[in-house]
């Protein structure tokens, strides 16, 4: 924080129009600055979605941590588990500073007001598929966070930068495990990874959300908490992952090609109807997540209550 240029909202702009003009001119907002309610809600909405995603799929990682076929591979999964919960924690702390408690955050998920991002609705069926899932969804998260780190709300930018350091470890671990199984594994393991990459390419590509013309409502450009279009991020991800996936022996999409003039990737049509249909439903995997989440959340309530009710130490 020290040494960074400070963009402070001038008091004269503490009205909605002034605020919008300030943001549009590249102004940044610091914790404690005046902000319109709509702006605060925008930050809360984006950060809540991300915070929930860090912690809800933990039962999946627990399962794979238990079943990792070597202690050697269990170890980075232990680290990943801690990192992901840590990501939820620093985001939840930021949300608390904005007036949203973590209890409200978790209730939002349990009561269906926050939905899991699309890729996390699908199961991972084998050890070979796991690194493919991790590589593609984790890299998509890196692309998204990298963009959010340039948004207008400085506390969230700082959260994103901290998170990305650890996401980098997750990405390289997944890539190295994919490579190891493809090059040193049995034919069955190799095909698990390669089939996994083909499967998860067609799921993770939806992680960025629908193109602009299919979204409605929120005018994210006004507030610049989010600064890039979904399609822009999808294109960045394809540029990053396509060479990697090919190097692992997979051609993920026969229609994938780059326009030589614009540099834009063209790919097989995505089924946004199915996306919208599924996004608001709970798949069987999600029902399991909700059950696990509810159980451990409710199991902990008595201890939290007890700690709150204890007198402050003198």
């Amino acid at each position: 924080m020290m040494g960074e240029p400070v963009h402070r909202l001038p008091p004269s702009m503490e009205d909605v129009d002034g605020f919008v003009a300030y943001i549009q001119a590249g102004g940044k907002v610091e914790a404690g600055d005046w902000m319109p309610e709509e702006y605060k809600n925008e930050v809360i909405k984006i950060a809540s979605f991300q915070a929930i995603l860090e912690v809800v799929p933990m039962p999946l990682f627990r399962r794979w941590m238990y079943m990792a076929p070597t202690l050697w591979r269990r170890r980075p999964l232990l680290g990943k588990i801690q990192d992901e919960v840590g990501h939820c924690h620093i985001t939840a702390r930021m949300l608390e500073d904005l007036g949203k408690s973590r209890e409200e955050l978790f209730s939002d998920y349990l009561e269906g007001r926050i939905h899991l991002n699309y890729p996390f609705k699908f199961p991972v069926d084998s050890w070979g598929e796991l690194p493919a899932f991790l590589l593609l969804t984790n890299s998509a998260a890196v692309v998204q966070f990298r963009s959010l780190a340039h948004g207008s709300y400085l506390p969230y930018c700082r959260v994103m930068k901290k998170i990305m350091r650890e996401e980098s470890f997750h990405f390289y671990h997944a890539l190295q495990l994919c490579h190891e199984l493809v090059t040193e594994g049995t034919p069955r393991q190799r095909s698990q990874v390669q089939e996994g990459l083909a499967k998860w390419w067609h799921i993770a590509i939806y992680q960025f959300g629908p193109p602009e013309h299919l979204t409605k409502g929120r005018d994210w450009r006004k507030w610049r908490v989010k600064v890039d279009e979904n399609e822009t991020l999808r294109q960045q991800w394809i540029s990053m992952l396509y060479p990697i996936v090919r190097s692992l022996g997979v051609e993920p999409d026969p229609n994938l090609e780059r326009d030589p003039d614009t540099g834009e990737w063209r790919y097989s049509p995505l089924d946004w109807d199915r996306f919208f249909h599924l996004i608001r439903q709970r798949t069987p995997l999600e029902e399991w997540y909700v059950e696990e989440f509810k159980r451990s959340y409710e199991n902990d309530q008595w201890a939290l209550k007890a700690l709150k009710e204890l007198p402050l130490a003198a």
Partner: protein
Amino acid sequence: MRADLEPIVRAWADDEIFFATYLLGRSCGASPDLEKILAMASIGQDEFGHAELLLGLLFPGPDVERRRDKERYFFEREPSDFRNSSLLKLELLDDWAAFVVRAFLYEEAESVRVGRLSEVEDLAGIVAIMEREEEEHRRYWRWWMTSLGRHPEARQRLGSAIELLLPYVTDTFWVKDAPTWWDPATLRRQWAESVAKVLAPLSLPHADSLLSEMASEPTPGPDVSSFWEFVREQQRIYRSDPEAITWG
């Protein structure tokens, strides 16, 4: 490493691996107390590191071969061949009170074990590392016990947890094929004394029975069929094709 230390180190390594696994497994449960989850995850990783140090004593040698031997040792043993104490055969994912009491009891036992083995030259280096981290862990779980123990409802839950765990403290410090100098009876008394210092001011239900059981001669713990299933589940992928393991 001296041959007579091997049974002790085997039991210890098994204790640490499973404690680490339970801690990280518990960290995957949702809770508003994210701080607690992160602390557990940190402690769990320390414990896993300790297990690796101990396995390194059992399987010294060039790196890749050593790694393979360690992995085979974990994944090819029958569940009945694991030597962890009964306290560490319970996952306890859904019972925070029991998880806290078990962690507290185990860390106090660790302190006694580390204290005893710090006198053994072959283990001094590793013990010095573990001792430092175990001190931090012990402080953490003591905090949980003393905090919850001050609350009327929470202390009842701790009491129920103590009652639940009573049958599982009977074999702590018992080591199969242990050398004659390994004195579980004395270690158990020391363990009971150390735990008593924390429990006495709290006056928790069943604490007296627990301390009495802890201070007595070790006896075999109960069969825990869920532990056998837990081990099998962890070994499933490895055992489905041991030749398929890649070593990176």
